[in-house]
């Protein structure tokens, strides 16, 4: 984007913030909006197109697509935010600890990170979702651990770079303890680099969860969830396309906006 004229880049940035703001606001206030209940069925109005009663039409059970699309981000966002937070904590702790401690601790932790990276993410998710059911807590913990490895790698690398810098050396020479150095000097400075990686992991987690839902192993019906909505509406794509397009647009705009936000290359 650095090749674009300045004003254009700013305009895009503003647009990205607007999209993110829209998603945040909608996710928070959707239950208070004057929308139809997401599970209200209507056997007299199934798979209808645009109408004044249903702005985006209805799905195969006569439920309001607009209402479901606006509610549909809530399950993914809750799970993705919690899982990302968990993976950020684990990732930063592992990564910076490895860099700070050095020696055999670094070696062991690095190998652990390599292990985690080698795990086939989706297979593990499928296994866990299939064997332990749709418990959101288990899902969050699993996602949190699996997506911690890339964050740990970035945190370790940037901490190492930082440790070589003068002000950290000074803090060490002044007799600062590891934890203090970590919290006082390292974290505030690695945060920016690590944040980019965390935001990327956030989008992968959103995509992973919606893929799980699409495969029938994430959210359970009748929960409005974008991946699940797309899976349900696919059969009727040529009858009422909005039922599949609406969740696609919502999901894609959120993921694209987060990607654009962190994409500074």
């Amino acid at each position, binding site marked *: 984007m650095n090749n674009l004229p300045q004003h254009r880049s700013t305009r895009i940035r503003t647009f990205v913030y607007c999209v993110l703001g829209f998603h945040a606001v909608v996710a928070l206030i959707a239950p208070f909006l004057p929308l139809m209940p997401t599970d*209200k069925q209507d056997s007299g109005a199934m798979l209808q197109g645009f109408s004044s009663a249903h702005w985006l039409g209805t799905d195969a059970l006569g439920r309001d697509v607009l209402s479901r699309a606006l509610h549909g981000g809530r399950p993914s966002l809750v799970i993705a935010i919690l899982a990302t937070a968990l993976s950020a904590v684990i990732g930063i702790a592992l990564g910076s600890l490895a860099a700070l401690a050095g020696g055999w601790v670094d070696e062991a932790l690095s190998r652990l990170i390599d292990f985690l990276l080698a795990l086939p993410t989706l297979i593990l998710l499928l296994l866990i979702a299939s064997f332990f059911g749709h418990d959101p807590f288990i899902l969050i913990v699993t996602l949190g651990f699996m997506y911690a490895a890339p964050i740990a790698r970035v945190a370790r690398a940037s901490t190492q770079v930082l440790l070589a810098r003068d002000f950290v050396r000074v803090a060490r020479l002044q007799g600062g303890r590891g934890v203090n150095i970590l919290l006082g000097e390292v974290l505030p400075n690695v945060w920016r680099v690590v944040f980019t990686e965390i935001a990327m992991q956030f989008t992968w987690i959103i995509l992973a969860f919606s893929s799980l839902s699409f495969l*029938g192993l994430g959210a*359970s019906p009748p929960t409005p969830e974008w991946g699940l909505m797309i899976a349900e509406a696919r059969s009727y794509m040529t009858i009422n396309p909005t039922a599949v397009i609406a969740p696609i647009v919502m999901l894609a705009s959120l993921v694209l906006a987060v990607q654009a936000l962190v994409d500074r290359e």
Partner: protein
Amino acid sequence: MQNKIILRVFVTAMLCGSLMLAACGRATTVTGVLRVANDAGFGGAETMDPYDGNRTWPTINMVFDRLIGVDKDFSPIPELALSWTSNEDLNEWTLVLREGVVFHDGSEFNADDVVYSINRMIDPEFDSPVRAVLGVIESVEAVDNYTVKLSLSTGEADLPSLLADYRALMTPVDSQATIGKAPIGTGPFRMETFDPEGTTVLVANENYFFGKPELSKIEIITFADSQSAAQALAGDQVDLLLAIDGKSSSIFGDTSKFTLQTIPSGDWNAIDFRVDRKPFDDARVRKALRIAADRQVIADTVLGVGGGVAACDTPVWTADPYRWDGPCAKDTEGAKALLAEAGFPDGIDIDIYTSDVEVHMVELVEAYQQQVKDAGIRVTIKMADASGFWDDVWMKESAFVDSWGQRPAAQVLNEVYRSTAAWNPTGQVDKALDAMLDDARSTKDLAQRKQKYIAIQQHIFENSGIFLPYHKTLTRVMSSKVKGIDPIVIDAVRWERISVS
């Protein structure tokens, strides 16, 4: 300038490349071959043994024949048996077999094969699902090469209809060990390759006793879910979908390409509650769960308006002479009262398992969940994976969706509701019902028999753990090239008369 040229050349090259790929990708169709889409409900454990629980349907009906078939009006017609008579008490039946019929391996079909086949169906050790239908047969003996005598434990007026069950197929003597993967039958098609997770290939049996099949080949292609099967028909990759969701039938509205058939049928969906688990062991809870829903609304929501006929938990369908059309309007207050009486004054929380293994099975639970909400019944929907649903979930969880094909009254009541039936999905043991079933089946007079079957259906409505809201009006769709499939249930389809132009 140069940069743009390079990029343009690059883009053009990519476009040309993809067009060339496209040229290789065109689907080809062959005449004389029927491609049938099938589901993968048993996840690789499918077998061609018609008496096994994992039998793969409708393939078995293309390879094997029954003694007695069904006509378009569901009356019994000769297949491998030419005629049948019974004694006065209806407990001894004599069948005369067709002569000169040969199996695919060239050996001749005779009474020994019938004795062998029926003995396997009723073997208590093997406990075939067919035993629930034909368990009434106590013994079978060959009178001569082409006559068999069946002795029943009780009178059964409708034995010919029961023998027309889609699994009561005739297999050659001593075939048990090999029949699962290398079946030998007398049917219109013989097995070439058996690959239940991929494509099963059948070729025409030139010596078929009803005449040489029109088709040279049938391919049964397995699809992971109903959506990809519909995709395949839309893309001319299969010719026949046995059942589609009526609501999506407008996708196949182009009559020059597709033939749509709507067939009133006895197929039904249900939600089963295991009576051996809490809280469904309480008859009041079961009844509350069943009367809290409006059946017609569920039928309309799930199947589309006109897609189904409401049923009062009776598996006996509208065209059956024994059908009971009892009153079963939605009764929210009654349901609440029953629940309060059973110790759930604040309503009840239940989990229901479902899966995309067949169309309608997920929507049914979603519609049910909505319907029973106001009676204080809070349903949590549990999704299970489609493949392996029948093995892993069905009859195992406490509450789950169910799906059955059309069967005559005497059969479906014995196969699904009798205490000892292998496929009694709720595990309900009801000796009173068993006695009523025995009494009804051995009653000679039709009017009296009908009264008794109606009483049975009323008894079921009071006690059963099966919530059965509707019988489906089937929507079958096929390529317009396919000819010879009448708008009747698939068990009555004569596969040898089908052609593809």
